[in-house]
């Protein structure tokens, strides 16, 4: 009798266990799944979702959200084709995003660096030449920023490299008009970074810092369970976007402070709480720029006043925040709420010494129209293989601090086999007024023989600015007519592939 009772008890236990396994999705289960997704614990979320065959709209929504986070928009789109899910506003919005995302990412070209734990999906497989550089920078930025914030990101880190703004909008759900207005380059959403390919812009962009900026968003999202307000997200991202690497020329040192102060004094301040749903959706690029400056300045001020640990404590507090008001987390961490912090920060800005106008750049630039004429004529002559003539046309132009013109003159000098003259006309970093990839490409080439370290640094700066410029990718070499001016290719296989890709791109 006793034996039978034991068997019966075992059967009951098994049955209950099986039921519990199949139906974990009560309110608690659903919340656990949602939190796992918000925490970017996609493995755990997959495990939780796998255990259930529930078909409630809420569960289907979370499952679709999980798939979108995993980058499987085609699958998510299929789940969201269930009208029960799209009855809700969130469901309908997610369905729209999943649909457009599926179109933009279906059959994407996936490259994975398993060792570094980075998964990169390329919309245009021609961007594969760019992948090794993305892996390197992403890993470095992730490790450095993670260490500073004391947050880790689950592996693999997912990155989508899309071909154009149209696709960026499709994958992220950011309205295309807004993206075009403000010039959005990347978005961190759905547990991954969605970034524009450098080939989308005419002369590249600072993709490394952009990637670091978006990675910081992921860190903040994970650290706060996506409860961080926009000003905090963007402020921290701006603060950390270039702290993962060594300082570079033209890094904006006091830009945030100066811009925020100027905006406040001129009554053009945007305000921390008036950023809307995204800075990318502000009406003009100028307003977006001011908003970035303000949030960065505010976060810098907060850290300056309270220290880095306070920031981390704020993240922790926000993670457990039940209410929608992050001000209470700020008060609990620092003793002041957001309004009080805002007033303190603004006071500090107004108390700061007046803006010092930067001294005019060394070297006087010539007539802009004349320079443009000469630059174009030089380009046309050089493209047709007339190096000597190009040099003749470009020589009289007064480049001033313009790296564009200096680069063209130096290139023409190189084309007529006058490297010394080229080095002279190219100048040095202190003579130019901005980061221009091809300038650094030529600079690296001219330093190769005498200063390999300097050359490597120049190439790296070029790569950070415009990786697909021929002079950057080919380390200072360029096509003169239908032949390269210097037949040597870069020693590194990655650079060689990048060089071939850049030459195929054929920018005008």
């Amino acid at each position, binding site marked *: 009798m006793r034996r039978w009772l034991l068997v019966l008890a075992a059967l009951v236990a098994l049955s209950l266990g099986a039921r519990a396994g199949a139906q974990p999705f009560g309110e608690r289960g659903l919340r656990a799944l949602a939190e796992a997704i918000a925490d970017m614990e996609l493995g755990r979320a997959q495990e939780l979702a796998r255990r259930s065959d529930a078909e409630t709209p809420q569960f289907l929504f979370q499952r679709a959200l999980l798939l979108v986070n995993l980058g499987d928009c*085609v699958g998510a789109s299929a789940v969201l084709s269930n009208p029960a899910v799209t009855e809700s506003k969130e469901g309908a919005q997610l369905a729209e995003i999943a649909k457009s995302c*599926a*179109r933009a990412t*279906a*059959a994407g070209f996936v490259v994975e660096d398993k060792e570094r734990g980075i998964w990169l999906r390329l*919309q*245009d497989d*021609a961007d594969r030449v760019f992948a090794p550089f993305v892996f390197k920078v992403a890993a470095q930025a992730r490790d450095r920023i993670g260490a500073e914030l004391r947050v880790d990101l689950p592996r693999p880190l997912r990155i989508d490299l899309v*071909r*154009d*703004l*149209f*696709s960026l909008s499709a994958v992220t759900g950011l309205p295309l008009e807004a*993206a*075009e*207005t403000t*010039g*959005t*380059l990347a978005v961190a959403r759905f547990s991954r970074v969605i970034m*524009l390919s450098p*080939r989308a*812009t*005419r*002369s*590249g*962009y*600072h993709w490394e810092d*952009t990637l*670091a*900026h*978006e990675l910081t968003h992921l860190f903040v999202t994970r650290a706060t369970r996506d409860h961080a307000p926009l000003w905090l997200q963007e402020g921290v991202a701006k603060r950390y*976007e270039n702290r993962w690497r060594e300082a570079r020329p033209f890094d*904006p040192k006091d*830009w945030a402070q100066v*811009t925020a102060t100027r905006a406040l004094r001129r009554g053009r301040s945007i305000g921390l709480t008036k950023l809307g749903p995204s800075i*990318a959706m502000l009406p003009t*690029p100028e307003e*977006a*720029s001011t908003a970035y400056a303000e949030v960065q300045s505010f976060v810098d001020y907060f850290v300056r006043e309270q220290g880095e640990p306070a920031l981390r404590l704020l993240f922790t507090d926000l993670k457990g925040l039940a209410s929608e008001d992050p001000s209470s987390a700020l008060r609990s961490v620092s003793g002041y709420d957001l309004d009080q912090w805002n007033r303190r920060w603004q006071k500090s800005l107004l108390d700061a010494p007046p803006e010092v106008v930067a001294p005019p750049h060394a070297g006087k630039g010539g007539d*802009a*129209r004349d320079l*443009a*004429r000469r*630059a*174009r*004529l030089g380009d*046309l002559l050089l493209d*047709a293989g*007339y190096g000597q*003539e190009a040099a*003749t046309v470009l020589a009289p132009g007064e480049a001033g601090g*313009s*790296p*564009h*013109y200096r680069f063209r003159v130096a290139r023409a000098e190189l084309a007529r086999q006058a490297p010394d003259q080229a080095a002279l006309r190219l100048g040095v970093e202190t003579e130019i*007024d*901005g*980061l221009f990839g091809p300038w650094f490409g030529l600079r690296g080439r001219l330093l190769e023989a005498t200063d390999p370290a300097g050359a490597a640094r120049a190439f790296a700066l070029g790569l950070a600015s415009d990786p697909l410029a021929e002079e950057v990718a080919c380390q200072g070499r360029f096509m003169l007519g239908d032949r390269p001016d210097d037949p040597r290719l870069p020693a590194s296989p990655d650079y060689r592939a990048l060089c071939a890709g850049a030459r195929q*791109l054929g920018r*005008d």
Partner: protein
Amino acid sequence: MPPIPAPAPLEALATRFRTRVARARRQLGVGLLLLGIVLAALLARQGTGLTRLGGAALLLAGISALVYVAMQARRTLSDRRRLIAATLSRAEPALGARALRALSLVERVGSPDAAETTESPELAQLHFQRVLALAPAKSLDAWASRVSDRLRLVLLLVVVGAGTALALDPARILEGLDVLVARAGRAPVPMYWLSSLRVESRPPAYQRSADHALFPTGVAHEPVGSVITVQGQPEREGRTLVLVGGTREVPFVSDGSGGVVARWVLSQPVELRVAARFGNVLITEPEGLELRPVADEAPQVALEGAPRQLEMKDMQALELRYSVHDDHGLREVALVLRAGGREDRRTLERLDGEVKQHTGAQALAPRDAFLRRSFLPVEVTVEARDNDGASGPKWGKSERITLLPTGVGEGEALRYAALESARAALVKGYARALPTLEPSKPGDPPRSAEQLRKQQKALVEESVSPLRQFVQGTFAGVTVPKTAQTFLIGQARALERPAPTAETFVRRFEDVLLAVDAALRAIGDRDAQTVSKRLGDVAEEVADGCKLGQDPEKQRDAKLRVGVAMGVLARGAAALASLSTLGGDLGGVAQGELRRIERALAAGSFLEAELAARHLAARLRRPKPSFSSADSGGVEGGGQGGRGGAQQPGEASQAHQQFQELMRELQQLAAEHAGEISAVEGALESAEQTEQDPELQNEAKERAEALRRALEGLPDYGPGQSPGEQAAALAREHGRAMAESLSRLSLRDAKQSAQSAKQQLDGARKAPADSSVSPESLSRAEQELQKQLTWVEEQLEKAQQAADARAKEALERSSKREQEMAERAQNLSGRGRHGEAALSSEVAEALDRAEGLMREAARELQNGRGERGLQLQRDAQRLLDQEEDDQRPEPQQGDEGEQRGGEPGAESPAASGKAEVPGRDKNQRAEEFRKRVLQGLSRDQGGRLGPAVKRYAEGLLK
């Protein structure tokens, strides 16, 4: 041991049993078998499975009874013990028992164990015979008679029963038995069911053939849809008769005259048989009528020259001559164009359904809207529909002519490449011109100015020649827009102007090179947008093909469709990529997305391929740069915010933008000037509309009356008049018209009528002398006419002066505006001559002439001479309008919304008179209509607004 022969008494018993009992039993058995057959047939005739089973059981029972009786008799006769038990024991039970005991003794003695006994077999046999011999023959006979009588009585009952059933309807038994042995629902033995069988066929009405009789048996060929009527008298009542053909059957119904009839609509080959239905079983007649339907053939369409392929870029017009034939009648002839999943069906002829033969022709112009929008090969067929009302109309189609469209963007890419070559020639020339700036080296021979000029001229000719060729060129059907032609020719002429110094020459070369470069980029960017949008349609076609491929049954078609569209897309993307910066960007996107689609297809995922193709289609339809904001990024980190973003150089040449600006300004000037003309016309018109002077009106009436009187001597117009009389009569008509206008004070009309009348009077005077009109009458009329005409002209002059005085203020305002516009024209001309954006000399000269006229018009208006000023304004406007027309770009291939649905064959040089090509006459009619409207609108508006009305009408008709 040998068998012992039966003793005689036993034989007697056997004989009695065989002849009396066994026979009676056998007869009964036969009777039962008969009864079984009858009952089985009746039961099985119900035709269901169960009843047929029951019938079979009954039949089996009858047979079994007969067999049993026979077997039983044989066994009884072959066994002494059975025989004694069946006979003696029944008649004399005691004696029977003794006989059986005696038989036992015989058997025991005869057995192998008998050796051990001492009994004699002979004695035992004797004992047995003696016992049998004791049996009384009388008793045995009585018993035998009793048994046979009883059996015969039963037999009688059975026979009567079976006989009754048979006698009532013997055919039922045969039917039942037939049904009983049926297999697969068909009885094996056919039977006749109908007598006087008649079969008729009624062909479908649309064939308009008469009804006709058919042989009830044999083979007949009848049109599909014929109604076959089978009629006859039933052989037997109460049967369910049907007409069976294949698996179908039609019941016979009463024809109202004692017969039955069934109708069968012929749709497929069939053997018709009359049959009777018994439950699930049919018993058919032995012979049937085999009907072979004759199908209505689809129309046969012959298209001249098909099948063949044509390149659309080489096609001026495609003339389609066709002939159509059908066996019964034609309803419609259509021209069908198919490209990918698109189809355009255009009815060429609607026929009455009785015509069996039709020929015609149709022209297809390359400007046809369908062809212009097609990027896939277009299959052209002529198809004809018959009048088949039975199985539904059928389309017959001709062999196809495949039109291979110009690749999407092919023309634009060729045009761009040609302009690039022209620019390359300029670059080369510029590179060669540069050394002329260098100071001559010591020792070099000095070059004279003449030498330098010659050298420059040769260089310019060489450099400009490709540009001139480009302007005149056609590239896979794509020409150079007029605006671009004007611009580029202007640049070429600017370069051809002699340069006083080498510096000027090089500087001018630079200007021209940069201007052409800017134009190249502008043309490339605009073409890239156009081509991109058209490629979007191709991508959509790929997506549709991929969607089709998601149905496993349609994958073959889908692969074909996708394959063709992908080819077009790939070539189009390559062409797009070759077009300027925007084209390179968009083409790069398209090529990347193409690879994505190919990856999906290679992985067998039509779904993913469709998604990627839809994305590409949407992207291409939005032909903007991939990153259309700030040059290298704005927000979301990494942007230039606060960073040392280097400033890109500006535009090197504003020539093309300047040219476009010039064109816009010119159009605006023309529009404003037209408005000014309207203002002057309005001012003059309102100045004329003054209050009528009653005295003047009375005087005019009197003068009108005087004129009428003076004309009375002239004849009325009538038939048979001599030329002189006719002229005089017409003069009278015009004179009356003048009088009427005078009485209404319509002085302009009166003047016009007076002039016409004067001409006719001159004619009458010069006519041969066969006229009945007296010279006096002519002179009187002439004098009066001249008198009144003079008065009218005086009044008109006064009115004009008064009107000018009234309009003076308005005219002065107009004069100032006219002056301003003249200055604008001068400015435009100057900028067009001396700026980077050179206008062609014709345009510049026309502008100069317009400017001169406008200045003169301004002076006239200023002086209050409104009419003269207006005339000058109109002349200037014509020049401005002409320039505007010249600059208006030609419709481009692929531009939506224009050249829509050009009439087939219209304006087609190749549409010769060989065929009656519809469309041409329509255009002629349209042209005639246009002329009529123009004439109508402008003829009777003699006032100042006449030209305005004409311009308005022309504008409407444009």
